[in-house]
């Protein structure tokens, strides 16, 4: 139990650092709103380290606190929708045990953007947001693959804790 709490705290804190670092990478695409999404690495690792209910909790905290710290509070609802969408997708893929972190992260990145765009087009009540969908789709895919490769390497070197919290 203590290990779960300690690891969750560490992952959450890491997600803030990652959010900060990703602001330092200038993205040379003309579309605003494209970001590398390093924070999702934390969620990815969480699947291998913690039970899924804990990971959901970390995800929610990351969205709320991360937006308060580094973004604007208004964006929480969009981000939450994307995070839930990507979490469900990633968890289902993880459960099948047929995909490595690369694939899980790539799919998660894509669905995160899809979820965000869907909510945005409903909230803003316009179809024009959908024009961003192709660009965000491909950027989510690419950054997901990148993060997945990093996560893959990390997974090889950390000790995996099984879901009862035992190493």
């Amino acid at each position, binding site marked *: 139990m203590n290990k779960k709490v300690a690891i969750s705290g560490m992952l959450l804190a890491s997600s803030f650092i990652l*959010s900060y670092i990703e602001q330092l990478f200038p993205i040379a695409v003309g579309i*605003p*709103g494209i*970001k590398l999404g390093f*924070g999702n690495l934390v969620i990815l690792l969480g699947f*291998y380290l913690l039970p899924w209910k804990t990971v959901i909790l970390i995800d929610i905290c990351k*969205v709320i606190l*991360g*937006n308060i710290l*580094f*973004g*604007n509070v*208004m*964006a*929480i609802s*969009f*981000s939450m929708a*994307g995070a839930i969408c990507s979490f469900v997708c990633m968890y289902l*893929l993880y459960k099948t045990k*047929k*995909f*490595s972190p*690369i*694939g899980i992260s*790539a*799919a998660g990145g*894509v669905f995160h953007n899809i979820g*965000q765009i869907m909510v945005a087009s409903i909230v*803003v009540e*316009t*179809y*024009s*947001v*959908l*024009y*961003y*969908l*192709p660009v965000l*789709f*491909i950027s989510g*895919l690419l950054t997901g*693959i990148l993060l*997945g490769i990093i996560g*893959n390497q990390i*997974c*090889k*070197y950390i*000790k*995996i804790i099984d879901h009862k919290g035992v190493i």
Partner: protein
Amino acid sequence: MKQFNKNIYKNDLILVLTLTFLFIVIYLGIIGLGNDKESASLLKIYHKNQLIQTIQLTESQNEIIELSVENFHHKIALMNGQVAMIEADCPDGICVQHKPIKYKGESIICLPHKLVLLVEHQEETEIDAVTW
């Protein structure tokens, strides 16, 4: 230490290829939708706050429209979805110096002649929130 089985990466490749295929489908779908009239802008021309003309703006358009209202002559150029006033016989000529307009809400106004060129019904110009 967790070692992944070599075959897992093949599954990843299939997944990524499927997503890429999905992307292509969506891309074509969105581009297909983008060609309908609803996404184009409308240029409305008002004289003394009364609508006198409405022009559809499209991406590939190259025309010059002559506007004559009450002995005032204006020439409006429509190029590729943008509108500019290229000639006017008003005393200050401020409207002619205006940058070409394109987005919803932008306008070129000729005060002495009480003429307003207004763009409406354009798509969103930029995202104004980034989420984390």
